[in-house]
């Protein structure tokens, strides 16, 4: 008897394996408190941390699946681009061969530190945004930036973006890592080994997550928890023991994203028949409970026709949009709804079988700012609260507000941002040993035996995944950036590049082949060795 699958076509593992996880989180609207040891183990970040290490060691020499890139951010209409150098983000895609993944590959991406520099931001009086002062507040550093700020002259984008109308304003880089590594305007960022010629000692620096922005006072709130310090002895320690240094400028730290179902919180349907070896009939379906009510993502071609296929060409851009019933659109959603769909309820309320299931969208720990509990996520999460819901005013006086969105602010056991094992593997490879999460799972049997099995299983899986790849592997259009506008990759790309989906264009990608030669896929160019 075959294993029973869930409503999305996923085959449930046998119970003995189900306890070991990790598998995609399946709780959708069940509140935010883990209700059993089973869910505690399944959702353990430590589990991913440990598996990531094993994956990194098993995958260390597979640089063949690394795709270095630079992405030129398109300039909005009406704004001239000045200067010799185009604004770009440097990064790399890395493929992790995976046995149970369609096409046999998960794509993980990283944007490098250094692309975003605060010495390129100025206040209303053209004062560069250096660190003016730092005060400590519980588990946070409050960093006052140089400059003059008020309600009419807030921090500049992308620190703060004012949104017209009643929609909330944006702080796009909240959640990113900031590092105080630029000593002077235009200077080379210091590394952990850079020595101050005036003192003969190393500069050192501090990395921390940007937790909050106070735009009208010019204050950035950085989180001590999970911070990393490069000490004057060139050692990385966590948490950092010293705050960001006054007079320096921040740069962005590394940023990661992954296409796997664990990081994206999505299941997908495995369509491949593996060269005909899989005989059982399949039909993709998705549970209503896993779909965001009334909304779904759609990708359209330049003719605004729905095009959710894998990418067919690098010469035509596609757009991601969120289709919603009239009156229930999310703020900032693109207006270009595919003509095939139309923004009408009969279409938007339909099931979208076999594409994705999705739930929740924000995963961050409570900020523990007791002085202002009205800030979403400002306290440790418990049961679902009123603040988790987003409503709009009632249609008529006397009626209740209309619920339009539920943000599941959910971090039951974590003390850092939640990563998948692929991202952990990249961080290990970076030589930045990631802090060990505190949610050590409750194993059902011997820990040593589990680890030994993990080592052997990872090696077996990696070897088998490579063999599979060489048998029925990737086509030319299945690797970045050629697949970056596919339904699977587009959400991952928006998280990685942190630009609106509208601004992810094929023409922005410059890739580098194995010999370091640049090529531009949108111009029809290919690696020199193809």
């Amino acid at each position, binding site marked *: 008897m075959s294993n029973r699958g869930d409503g999305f076509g996923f085959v449930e593992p046998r119970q003995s394996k189900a306890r070991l996880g990790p598998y995609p989180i399946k709780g959708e609207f069940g509140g935010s408190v883990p209700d059993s040891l089973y869910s505690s183990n399944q959702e353990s970040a430590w589990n991913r941390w440990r598996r990531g290490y094993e994956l990194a060691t098993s995958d*260390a020499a597979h640089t063949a699946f*690394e795709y270095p890139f630079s992405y030129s951010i398109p300039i909005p209409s009406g*704004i001239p681009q*000045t*200067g010799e*150098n185009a604004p770009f983000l440097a990064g790399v895609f890395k493929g992790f061969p995976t046995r149970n993944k369609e096409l046999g590959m998960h794509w993980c991406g990283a944007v490098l530190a250094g692309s975003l*520099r605060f010495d390129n931001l100025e206040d209303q009086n053209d004062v560069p945004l250096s660190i003016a002062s730092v005060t400590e507040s519980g588990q946070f550093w409050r960093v006052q930036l140089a400059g003059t700020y008020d309600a009419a002259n807030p921090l500049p984008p992308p620190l703060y973006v004012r949104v017209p109308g009643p929609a909330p304003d944006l702080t796009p880089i909240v959640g990113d890592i900031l590092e105080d590594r630029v000593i002077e305007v*235009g200077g080379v960022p210091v590394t952990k080994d850079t020595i101050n010629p005036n003192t003969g000692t190393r500069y050192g620096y501090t990395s921390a997550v940007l937790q909050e922005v106070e735009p009208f006072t010019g204050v950035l709130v950085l989180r001590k928890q999970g911070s990393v310090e490069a000490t004057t002895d060139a050692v990385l320690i966590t948490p950092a023991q010293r705050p960001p240094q006054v007079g320096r400028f921040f740069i962005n730290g590394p940023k990661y994203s992954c296409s796997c179902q664990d990081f994206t919180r999505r299941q997908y349907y495995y369509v491949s028949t593996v060269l005909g070896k899989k005989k059982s009939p399949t039909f993709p379906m998705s549970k209503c409970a896993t779909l965001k009510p009334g909304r779904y993502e759609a990708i359209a071609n330049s003719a605004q026709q729905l095009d959710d296929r894998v990418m067919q060409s690098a010469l035509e851009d596609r757009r991601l949009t969120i289709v919603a019933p009239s009156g229930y659109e999310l703020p900032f959603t693109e207006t270009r709804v595919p003509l095939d769909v139309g923004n009408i309820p009969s279409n938007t309320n339909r099931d979208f079988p076999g594409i994705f299931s999705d739930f929740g969208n924000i995963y961050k720990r409570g900020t523990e700012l007791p002085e202002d509990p009205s800030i979403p996520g400002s306290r440790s999460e418990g049961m679902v609260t009123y603040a988790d819901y987003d409503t709009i005013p009632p249609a008529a006086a006397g009626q209740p507000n209309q619920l339009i969105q539920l943000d599941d602010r959910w971090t039951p056991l974590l003390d850092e941002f939640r990563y998948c094992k692929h991202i952990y593997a990249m961080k290990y490879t970076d030589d930045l040993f990631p802090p060990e999460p505190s949610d050590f799972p409750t194993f059902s049997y011997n820990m040593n035996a589990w680890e030994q099995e993990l080592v052997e299983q990872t090696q077996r899986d990696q070897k088998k995944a490579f063999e599979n790849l060489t048998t029925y592997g990737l086509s030319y259009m299945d690797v970045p950036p050629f697949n970056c506008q596919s339904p699977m990759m587009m959400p991952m790309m928006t998280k990685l590049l942190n630009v609106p989906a509208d*601004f992810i264009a094929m023409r922005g990608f410059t890739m580098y082949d194995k010999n370091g030669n640049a090529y531009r896929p949108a111009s029809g160019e290919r690696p020199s060795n193809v």
Partner: protein
Amino acid sequence: MSETPGFGDIIQTRVNLSNQQLGKREFGRSPIKLSGNPARYHAGDTVHQPFGSGETSTIFALGAAWAASVSGVGPQ
């Protein structure tokens, strides 16, 4: 640092595969062989992008993209 890095150069990398590691790369039992070492960018590297005054910097472009998007303006 003995030399001043140029625009877009990597100033710090944490990935230096040894010749032995490069030579050991394999695809399971596949006869496919690898060559080269794609060393342009690795995760964990730090890039040097010192935009001058008046230049359109990356952080400015990122902010401009978001500011334009909320106003319904797309890329050029």
